């Protein structure tokens, strides 16, 4: 197999595609890291809203989750791509479109994980916290979330891997991530087998090492 094409283009693929350093505003990691952080944060709120006492809040959060779990990410990306500029009356860059689509969709999945994690805690924990005089918010912040988050770590890391892989769909609207960078190089070199296999290996290295971390944490908490 002729690997010359990789030898000549790996710098562009890694610097521009993976890290986002170069002529294009792009980068897989520059998209994945903030999307994971924001999606997780929004997911905590959605997960807690689904456990709220107010039926309105609970209903809204449930509808949010059911909606986003029933729609493909590609569809959500196109929604953001066409609708946000209409709403804001200004063009937003691909980065903004991609990150808002990823965050709003993945938050629904993170929310489900958070809800499941909180529900596995014995009810006595909440009662004990209230009995020693903590407020509802304090109970959540100091007692429930720290324990629930620890229980959820494996499923959260799994979701983070999904989100990391999903960033590749931002290439559909022209965001220059690793996938788009490989397409750009391939348009010039026409070596699809080598190029797509090469980026497959890069994605694999990241996703697989994350899954190893998840497994180690799973053993630790179990």
């Amino acid at each position, binding site marked *: 197999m002729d690997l010359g094409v990789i030898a000549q283009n790996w710098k562009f693929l890694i610097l521009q595609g993976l890290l986002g350093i170069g002529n294009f505003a792009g980068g897989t990691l520059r998209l994945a890291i903030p999307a994971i952080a924001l999606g997780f944060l929004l997911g905590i709120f959605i997960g807690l809203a689904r456990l709220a006492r107010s039926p309105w809040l609970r209903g809204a959060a449930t509808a949010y989750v059911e909606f986003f779990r*029933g729609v*493909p990410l590609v569809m959500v990306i196109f929604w953001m791509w066409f609708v946000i500029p209409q709403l804001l009356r200004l063009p937003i860059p691909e980065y903004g479109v991609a990150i808002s689509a990823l965050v709003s969709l993945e938050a629904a999945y993170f929310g489900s994980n958070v809800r499941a994690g909180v529900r596995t805690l014995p009810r006595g924990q909440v009662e004990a916290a209230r009995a020693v005089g903590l407020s509802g918010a304090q109970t959540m912040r100091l007692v429930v979330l720290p324990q629930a988050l620890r229980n959820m770590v494996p499923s959260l890391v799994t979701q983070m891997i999904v989100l990391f892989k999903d960033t590749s769909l931002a290439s559909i609207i022209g965001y220059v991530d690793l996938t788009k960078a490989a397409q750009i190089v391939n348009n010039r070199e026409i070596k699809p*087998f080598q190029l797509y*296999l090469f980026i497959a290996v890069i994605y694999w290295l990241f996703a697989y090492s994350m899954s190893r971390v998840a497994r180690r944490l799973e053993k630790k908490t179990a």
Partner: protein
Amino acid sequence: MSYSFRWSVLWTGQSGHWLLEGVLTTLALSALAWVLAAALGMTAGALRTLRHRPLRAVGTAYVEFFRNVPLIVWMFFWYFGVPPLLPRAVQDWLFSHGAEFWAGMFALGVYHGARMSEVIRSGILSIPRTQFEAAQAMGLTTWQAYRLVILPIAVRLIVPPATNESLNLLKNSSVALTISVPELTFQTRQIETYTARAIEALTAGTLIYLAMCLSIAWIMARVERRFAIPGMIARVGGG
């Protein structure tokens, strides 16, 4: 926001026809990919529970390699990367018989087979080892024990997570638009291109996906109840 809706674009001209074609392609693509994913998932899932080390390694290698790379990369790989390596005659046949559809189906099936096998493996592992030992004590071979005892129980245990995964497959079939398979998302974009009515077209596509996902979830919930072994599912599904 001053956007004047014109919903009629969805049923005038060719839009209705495109949407229908999109739904049918999405369903055909997903159904065929699902069969492939289920076959691969069951094989790999079962292999990974065996005592035999090399067989277990084969299963693990398949799963870890395919599920840790984004689907879109696999689509490009199977559609652009692999066909040029095939003999000329096979290439010609493929490209005159909808190569994008078959590449998309293959990518979707192989990727989700790896994810499906995780579901199946945890289903098998959640069956008490004693079931297997009892089956062997009665004189069944390993293959018979799997076919007659372990798998029938495991299949029931995995219906809820497998349904979830099947819906993921259905939703992920939308990625095939990147290799020009005329599925639902592709057709939604086409309506947008022809009518310049993005919100109407996206609403139609989104509602169709929601309807498909919700009805499959509803049907599978009924199937689950119908085939439940009394006293068996309650213990696992109760959590």
